């Protein structure tokens, strides 16, 4: 079986299905038997979930939306007058 060090080094490539030539089975076999690496994989997934957290800080406010939509309208109108 591959070592924990080896498994962890492949964990993210595994998670991204980016292992290429390296067989996934080796990582999967290791994960089945190793609680530590299983925890690490779970944690890697949770970190990604945390990164996706969205709230007030990333939301489009009505004022900004109005502003941007007016900008797009202005682009369309400019083209209209060109033709």
């Amino acid at each position, binding site marked *: 079986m591959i070592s924990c060090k080896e498994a*962890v080094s492949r964990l*993210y490539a595994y998670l*991204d299905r*980016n292992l290429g030539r390296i067989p996934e089975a080796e990582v999967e076999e290791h994960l089945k038997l190793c609680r530590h690496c299983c*925890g*690490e994989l779970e*944690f*890697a997934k*949770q*970190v*990604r*979930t*945390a*990164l*996706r*957290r*969205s*709230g*007030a*800080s*990333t*939301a*489009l406010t009505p004022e*900004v*939306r109005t*502003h*941007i*939509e007016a*900008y*797009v*309208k202005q*682009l*369309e109108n400019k*083209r*209209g007058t060109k033709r």
Partner: protein
Amino acid sequence: MTSDGGGTVIDLRPVAKPAEFEDTVRPHMEYLYGLAVRLCGNRTAAQDVVQAALLRAFRGFGRLRNREQPRLWLTRILTRCHIDRFRAEHEAEETLSLDDETRFDLFDKITEEDPFPYSDRVHLDFLDLFDDERILEVLQRLHPAHRTAIILAYVYGFTAREIGEMTAATTGTVLARLFRGRKQLERGLWRYAEQRNLLRRGAPA
């Protein structure tokens, strides 16, 4: 079919109908803005980048083949606008002190330091410290090239190949940036928690 009676070549690209551009981009405003805030770290710069991207998208709209699914196209334009606006930062050397940073493993660090004694979900407790605002702050501590790769891959699910195409980098470079970005992110989360005294470890009993 390709020429009229006078022999002039007719432009066969579908002529954009009035408001077609507007109708195409409107459903993606929220998405584009969220991506821009994450890349820029603040709302003012984000709005500028979104507007620059919309201008560029408008000019290139005739070249967009798949108008039903413009998200990949819009993402590439917005990412390029961000790179153009922050070119100096993007081109700064992507350093990572190998000994220190690459050995750091947040999962192990949390296990060893046990910042939440008596919790049986210490890793989740650690991540629960970070709401969207704090995540944004930590992301800003990453090198822009690493941050861009991390956001596009882990927040929005683009593949390394797609990100390479968006950022004019090879897939290999993107994978290296993801690796470094992940290490910086892990380090950054830990440092942030320490600096803000968010860890219970060492707190008076």
